């Protein structure tokens, strides 16, 4: 076939031929074609199958409202399911395949459903598949699920990338038809910043599909002229191929630009699509109107389409959908299709006009007071049956039928904030009502002004209104002459006739019968209608079907249409690729990395890194010959405890707190006291939430009378800082406190072990003997002249320090520490060894700081000072939090040293039944202690402080582990603290 249905004219570039394929067959088309127009030009009407009955379908429309002509576009990893052939821009080499059909589009086995349709009425599944009880999930549902869906994803990663971007404007104009162009022109000439976005690849909207003139020019030429002027204005941004998909609060709109979808593959570095977040002061939605069909029996055959689409294919794309065309209309716009087609030389065999009083078209067989009652043609239309005004029926052979039931203004975006539309009887359609998105107004056909002149005037007037609201005076200009004909619509929603099915929602196969059944079963609310029948829930979201469904329900219930109501549109206006919404945030770029200053050095050492929030921390550093992580970790622990180890602790949050009220401030935010801390010392602090649960902990040092540096956990660095800002601005606004995060400013390393001081003495310029720098000492030092900070604090239980230098020197410090430590066989240890040593010491961390635990639970109840007001102090005293049988932190050792402990195991009394009532608590953190030669754990145990010495079970049902354990003090190692004071 070679473009057998191509006729003269249209906005296609016939000088270039594009090759493409559909279901393996090759075809030719031209730039400017859509996949649908090109297929129709090649005589292909059958493009898809419906969802439920697998009915053969061709395009209903020529736009984004298309419910039927959905295909797999492209192949392999780039296959896009459910792509509307009507808006897919043709490119050379395009491949498309049909979907939801097996084994082929022409012979689809699942079309058996169509034969059985009388069983598959709306909601039938709610009433059956219940017997026998187990069969629903084992038999029935798997069958239903296998049949589900339309198109398929390949399960391959999307190979393309997506951008996100922001744009700003005074006025966003949505839609570049006559109203949108006029609005943009009016505002653009007045000098305000305008963005004009249109979903089509050619601006002009309906003007591209019409032969109407504007100011004596062809509509398309007029549009091109306006676009050219707009393009010349520096304050106007034209965004073609850009669909505004959603209205959000405060004038923020989401729009998707299809940057590369008209290309075989995106150019290198370029995204497939870009998600624009458009920040507008005002917006005009000039999205036009969507034609709706009339329901009659078998009104879904390929070749039956909207009358406006039929003429769009002829006018814009030079395609005659059929050689013999009929038109079925209830309004004058349908007549325009007949006239245009005739003018194009297409044979219009009849106009079936449901009205008795419409204007008569000269030279065309015009059947007034007639209705189409049925159609024939298995895979494509071959004829229609018409009931004449006389009541007689007549069969008319035709291969295309254009149907016009009127036009629905595109209220979609206007209803995104749940505004209810209003009914306008003269055009029998909903128009935007009150309560739309603030700053958004509708213009042109979207506002119900369906004539060309009405659109031009609407765009102009609304733009003037916008300008005025922005404080800019602009005077009304002269509008070009254009047609201003009324629609003269006489509502006809469905043709009552016979027992067959008349489709309302074509994709989801919702028919007039289904609406009747819903009414019969009292699903008469519009929402019930939608949910019970699935009306409007297909990929087109009911753009062509919803109003008909409501009208039928209104008719059945004897209510008026506005009384029956309308379901509102939710975003997006047209479906949006997930990739576009995600942008570049995928794979390794899902979240930014945070690297410590000695990351490079650690990488050189072969460190294994672990994600801690966005940080990468050294988990352990394997040495040659070590085959398991445990070997490495054990070595790191033992070496540290034997001599000295170095750990990168840069990730801990650091906050400088200064001001004359800094001490009083810390007394408020910590449950223990800091105002008594001496300058040059540091102290462990416990921070509660106002509900009395532990929020965070860390060591805070007093560097000067009015200057502290607080450390937080890595995980809570940001939330603690936020909390401190809250306390100083909101709760105690007159305190003289200034805070700033210094987490990233300093590279900080823990140097721990019996030889820690000896090592640091080689690096630090000052005297750091125990006398000069005692346990919990803190202050500024220099290291070979470099400014630094030193804290004598210990998480490991060893003699330990943390030493910090400006981040750019972190790498050098690490190297220097390792060099200085060589004589002591210093090791680097990672977070695993850190965890081992802190659990050996019974320090709480992640597993215990779970947000569900109080200081009392952690064995730190005495830290909560009652002598002063602090966050969380009062509510920590509630009865439920102070009960003697509440959870207490305990240590856990296996009764048999070989016994295995697992974090998350629950405590059970020996001999107690396995049930909720026996649940004694759980193991919060577990490590292997190379020092003790067995697994050890911390846990929260009910009344744990009274159960020290008790033998219990630690059970992990998930792994089938059941270990006898001894409950011990959480301080496994050096409980008297002789080492870290040493």
């Amino acid at each position, binding site marked *: 076939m070679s473009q057998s249905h191509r006729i003269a004219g249209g906005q296609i570039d016939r000088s270039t031929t594009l090759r493409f394929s559909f279901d393996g067959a090759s075809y030719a088309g031209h730039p400017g074609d859509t996949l649908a127009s090109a297929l129709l030009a090649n005589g292909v009407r059958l493009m898809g199958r419906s969802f439920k009955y697998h009915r053969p379908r061709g395009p209903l429309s020529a736009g984004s409202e298309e419910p039927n002509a959905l295909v797999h576009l492209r192949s392999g990893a780039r296959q896009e399911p459910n792509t509307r052939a009507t808006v897919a821009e043709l490119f050379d080499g395009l491949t498309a395949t049909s979907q939801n059909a097996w084994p082929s589009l022409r012979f689809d086995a699942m079309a058996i459903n169509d034969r059985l349709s009388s069983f598959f009425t709306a909601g039938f599944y709610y009433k059956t598949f219940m017997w026998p009880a187990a069969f629903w999930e084992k038999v029935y549902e798997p069958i239903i699920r296998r049949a589900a869906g339309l198109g398929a994803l390949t399960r391959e990663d999307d190979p393309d990338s997506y951008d996100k971007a922001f744009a700003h404007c005074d006025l966003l104009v949505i839609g570049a038809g006559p109203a949108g162009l006029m609005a943009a022109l009016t505002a653009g000439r007045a000098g305000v910043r305008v963005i004009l976005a249109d979903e089509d690849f050619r601006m002009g909207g309906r003007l591209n599909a019409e032969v109407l003139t504007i100011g004596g020019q062809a509509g398309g030429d007029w549009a091109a002229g306006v676009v050219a002027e707009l393009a010349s204005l520096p304050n106007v941004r034209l965004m073609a191929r850009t669909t505004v998909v959603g209205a959000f609060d*405060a*004038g923020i709109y989401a729009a998707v630009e299809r940057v590369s979808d008209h290309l075989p593959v995106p150019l290198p570095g370029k995204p497939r699509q870009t998600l624009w977040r458009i920040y507008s002061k005002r917006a005009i939605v000039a999205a036009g109107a969507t034609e709706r069909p009339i329901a009659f029996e078998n009104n879904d055959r390929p070749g039956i389409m909207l009358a406006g689409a039929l003429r769009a294919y002829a006018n814009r794309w030079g395609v005659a959908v059929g050689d013999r065309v009929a038109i079925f209309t209830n309004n004058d716009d349908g007549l325009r299709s007949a006239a245009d087609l005739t003018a194009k030389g297409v044979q219009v065999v009849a106009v079936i006009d449901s009205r008795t009083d419409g204007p008569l078209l000269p030279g065309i067989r015009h059947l007034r007071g007639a209705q189409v009652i049925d159609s024939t043609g298995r895979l494509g239309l071959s004829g229609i049956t018409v009931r004449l005004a006389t009541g007689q029926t007549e069969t008319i052979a035709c291969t295309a039928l254009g149907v016009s039931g009127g036009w629905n203004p595109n209220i979609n975006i206007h209803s995104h904030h749940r505004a209810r539309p209003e009914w306008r009887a003269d055009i029998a359609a909903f128009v935007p009502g009150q309560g739309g998105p*603030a700053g958004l107004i509708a213009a042109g056909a979207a506002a119900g002004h369906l004539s060309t002149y009405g659109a031009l005037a609407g765009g102009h007037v609304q733009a003037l209104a916008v300008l005025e609201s922005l404080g800019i005076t602009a005077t009304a200009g002269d509008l070009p002459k254009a047609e201003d004909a009324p629609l003269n619509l006489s509502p006809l929603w469905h043709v009552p006739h016979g027992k067959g099915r008349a489709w309302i929602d074509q994709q989801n196969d919702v028919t007039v019968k289904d609406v009747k059944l819903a009414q019969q079963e009292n699903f008469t609310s519009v929402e019930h209608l939608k949910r019970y029948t699935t009306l409007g829930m297909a990929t087109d979201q009911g753009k062509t079907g919803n109003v008909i469904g409501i009208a039928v329900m209104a008719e059945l219930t004897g209510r008026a249409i506005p009384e029956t109501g309308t379901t509102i549109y939710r975003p997006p206006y047209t479906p949006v690729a997930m990739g576009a919404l995600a942008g570049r945030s995928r794979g390794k770029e899902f979240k930014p990395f945070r690297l410590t200053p000695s990351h490079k050095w650690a990488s050189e050492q072969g460190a294994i890194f672990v994600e801690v929030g966005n940080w990468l921390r050294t988990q352990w550093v394997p040495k040659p010959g070590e085959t398991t992580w445990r070997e490495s970790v054990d070595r790191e622990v033992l070496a540290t405890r034997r001599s000295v180890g170095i750990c990168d602790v840069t990730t801990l949050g650091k906050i400088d707190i200064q001001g004359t009220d800094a001490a009083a401030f810390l007394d408020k935010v910590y449950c223990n006291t800091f105002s008594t801390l001496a300058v040059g010392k540091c102290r462990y602090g416990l921070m509660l939430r106002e509900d009395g649960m532990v929020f965070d902990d860390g060591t805070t040092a007093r560097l000067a009378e009015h200057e502290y540096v607080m450390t937080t956990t890595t995980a809570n660095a940001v939330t603690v800082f936020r909390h401190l*800002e809250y306390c100083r601005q909101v709760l*105690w606004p*007159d305190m003289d406190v200034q805070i700033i995060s210094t987490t990233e400013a300093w590279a900080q390393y823990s140097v721990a072990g019996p030889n820690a001081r000896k090592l640091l003495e080689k690096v630090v310029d000052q005297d750091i003997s125990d006398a000069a720098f005692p346990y919990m000492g803190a202050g500024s030092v220099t290291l070979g002249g470099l400014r630094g900070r030193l804290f004598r604090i210990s998480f490991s239980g060893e003699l330990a320090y943390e030493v910090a230098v400006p981040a750019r020197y972190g790498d050098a410090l690490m190297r220097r520490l390792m060099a200085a430590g060589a004589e002591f066989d210093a090791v680097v240890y990672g977070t695993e060894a850190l965890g081992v040593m802190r659990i050996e010491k019974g320090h709480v961390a992640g597993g215990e700081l779970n947000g569900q635990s109080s200081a009392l639970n952690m064995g730190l109840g005495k830290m909560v000072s009652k002598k*002063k*007001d602090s966050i969380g102090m*009062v509510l920590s005293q509630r009865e439920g939090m102070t009960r003697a049988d509440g959870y207490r932190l305990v240590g856990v050792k296996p009764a048999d040293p070989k016994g295995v402990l697992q974090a998350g195991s629950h405590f059970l009394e020996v001999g107690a039944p396995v049930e909720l009532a026996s649940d004694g608590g759980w193991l919060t953190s577990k490590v292997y202690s190379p020092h003790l030669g067995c697994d050890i754990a911390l846990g929260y145990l009910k009344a744990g402080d009274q159960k020290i010495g008790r033998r219990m079970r630690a059970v992990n049902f998930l792994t089938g582990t059941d270990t006898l354990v001894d409950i011990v003090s959480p301080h496994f190692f050096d409980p008297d603290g002789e080492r870290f004071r040493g």
Partner: protein
Amino acid sequence: MIIPHPILGPRDAQEFVYLGDASLIDRPDGMTAGIEVFHDYLYNRDNPAGLHRELWYHEQGDRSWLVVTRDTVTHEIVSAELARDVARARGRSK
């Protein structure tokens, strides 16, 4: 949403972190108020459908805590003030 920051002008709500009802400003004094008073302060809310005064923190901005007056039905924002000013006006100091 766009929050009219009293210092910086209109700012995307995305830059902010939400806390909740601005009544949280009126924290009782822990040395005088007991559990019941703190309980009501911390847990109970008017939760109006309509204008709501609420605390937002400009975390990705200037770190100001704001009291924003916003309609919870329409999301329209009526005003925004520095929470520090509001707190002082409500008698909070040190």
